[in-house]
């Protein structure tokens, strides 16, 4: 994992874990790597990982079993709302970018529709041509 050093590293670790959770790369209820393991893998200070885990625990995304370690939540609703949170951020960033380009809401809708209907390859994922209801 490459870090952007302008942003606190624990925030970036949190973001990565959230993304992996939503995408199912981390399975609900699975045991998380220990703080030490994670720090060794990412080559960061263990205190930074500890801080990320604490924050994730506060958000109920992970929980600790005393003396057993840290586990990812099993609660589907938390994972679901996490997905909503992450997609919300993507949409906000998109809208912000479009606003900077001085696109009106109608215009945004129109070009978005065009893109979706046209169907094109974005980052290797092919968005199928399909009419929007």
């Amino acid at each position: 994992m490459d870090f952007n050093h302008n942003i606190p590293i624990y925030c970036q670790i949190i973001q990565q874990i959230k993304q992996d959770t939503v995408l199912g790369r981390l399975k609900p209820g699975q045991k998380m790597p220990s703080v030490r393991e994670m720090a060794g893998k990412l080559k960061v200070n263990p205190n930074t990982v500890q801080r990320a885990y604490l924050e994730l625990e506060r958000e109920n995304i992970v929980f600790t079993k005393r003396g057993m370690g840290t586990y990812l939540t099993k609660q589907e609703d938390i994972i679901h709302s996490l997905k909503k949170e992450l997609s919300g951020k993507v949409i906000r960033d998109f809208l912000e970018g479009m606003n900077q380009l001085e696109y009106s809401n109608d215009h945004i809708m129109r070009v978005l529709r065009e893109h979706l209907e046209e169907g094109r390859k974005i980052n290797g994922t092919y968005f199928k041509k399909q009419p929007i209801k």
Partner: protein
Amino acid sequence: MEHILKSSQLSKYFYQKKALQKVDINIEKGKIYGILGPNGGGKSTFLKLAAGLLKPSEGEILIDGKKPGVYTKSIVSYLPEGNYFYKWMRIQDALSFFGDFYADFDVEKARQNFDFMKLDEKEKISSLSKGMLGRLKLSLAMSRNASLFLLDEPLNGIDPISREKIITSILEAFNPKSTIIICSHLIVYIEKLLDYVFFLSEGQIILEGNVEDLRNKKNLSIDQLYQEVFQS
């Protein structure tokens, strides 16, 4: 909070030159600290005072509540800059030297470190490249079960592969009971290791703080912050 190192109004003068001026540094257990600053800023002087190689001109430095001396040297592992080995030594000689010298030296751990660092015990130290010498020095320094590690420029003049290995073994040696102070001007490579930084310039602390808080507050990496502070 327990302080493993505490300096108050610590000053060191070399004749006219003021190497350190009234430096207050408090170091807590279980953290990794960076003392960053340009050459000649006083970083090495501070570490030498902590290691007991120099005496303060004014003020005081305490390690685990004691003035530097026999006790503090037994709990402090100091990695100096430069090559401090005898010319005749092979790696195995340095190993037994350290083993004889320090009660907390873990020979097994050192051998594991040598293995990881791809160091051959039969090799003569004088024929090592700068990168390999850096690996050796670090392997030895981190093989002590010390409470406080003082690392003076562990990455200076080190190739990228050795650098990664050194960073890995610093992290491996670190545990909640130990404390590490790294002096460096190569900030990019060490900033993800650090909890807290002090910027030292012309013998004075000009900025200090928790690295994640600094990134948050300034929207800058520690490296960028350093550039900003020292260019103005």
